[in-house]
């Protein structure tokens, strides 16, 4: 069974709502507590990036299956300037703002599958999976 919801990402408080809804999806998928915490933290990092650097967008939260295992899939999209050099952006410690540069690289370590796509001028899309 798959359930899907799409949440707006327009202001800071939306990040809190996204965290809470991702937590709910991860609980419903019966992920362990550490896995729940990891996917919620990863969602928080990527949503903040999308808001600060991408000017906002939306977050799709899907509770689904992957190869027969219960899974949570997130797709966070923004319509900002995009990332010109993805490889550099994925490096620990690289930041274009005043953060720690852990957002993208750290989030990738917290999830089971991570895809990022970006075109300069067309925004960025990050897909993340965590499964049981």
């Amino acid at each position, binding site marked *: 069974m798959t359930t899907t919801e799409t949440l707006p990402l327009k202001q800071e*408080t939306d990040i809190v709502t996204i965290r809470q809804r991702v937590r709910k999806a991860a609980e419903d998928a019966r992920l362990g507590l550490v896995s729940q*915490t990891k996917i*919620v933290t990863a969602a928080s990092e990527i949503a903040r990036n999308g808001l600060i650097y991408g000017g906002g967008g939306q977050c799709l939260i899907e509770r689904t299956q992957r190869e027969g295992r219960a899974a949570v899939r997130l797709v966070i999209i923004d319509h900002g300037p995009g990332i010109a050099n993805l490889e550099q952006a994925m490096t620990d410690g690289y930041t274009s703002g005043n*953060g720690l540069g852990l957002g993208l*690289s*750290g989030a990738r370590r*917290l999830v089971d599958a991570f895809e990022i796509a970006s075109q300069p001028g067309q925004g960025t899309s990050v897909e993340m999976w965590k499964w049981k």
Partner: protein
Amino acid sequence: MTAKIPILKMGDYLLISIQVDMHDQLALDLQEDLTEQIVRHSAKGVLIDISALEIVDSFIGRTLSHIASVARILDAKVIVVGMQPAVAITLVELGLSLDGIATALNVEKGMAWLQRNVNEGLRVEAERDDDRDAAAETGD
């Protein structure tokens, strides 16, 4: 949206228990309020209980580090207590080590740490004063 995280004063210490899922501005407001109250009350120690926090992401982690650094400059010790194990595991994997932040498992251990460290700081200061007095006496 105007909600604030309460800061309680107890003797030389300030106590904070974060019971809500903090959005970023709330974390920044806490940093500012706390800095102001450290100065206003000449607080010697700050205990921050995060046992109710279900995640600590890089922003919250960075805010905690900033709070500890600013407090140090203002001559107050900070201890963060009660981090959930799943949060600790996630933080390390995220790449955040919370360098420079003292931590304890619970409020009781945190208070004991503060009392020990604050008292020690005061004793060192008193000894320094004694030395100075002694030097002054023999100086001339």
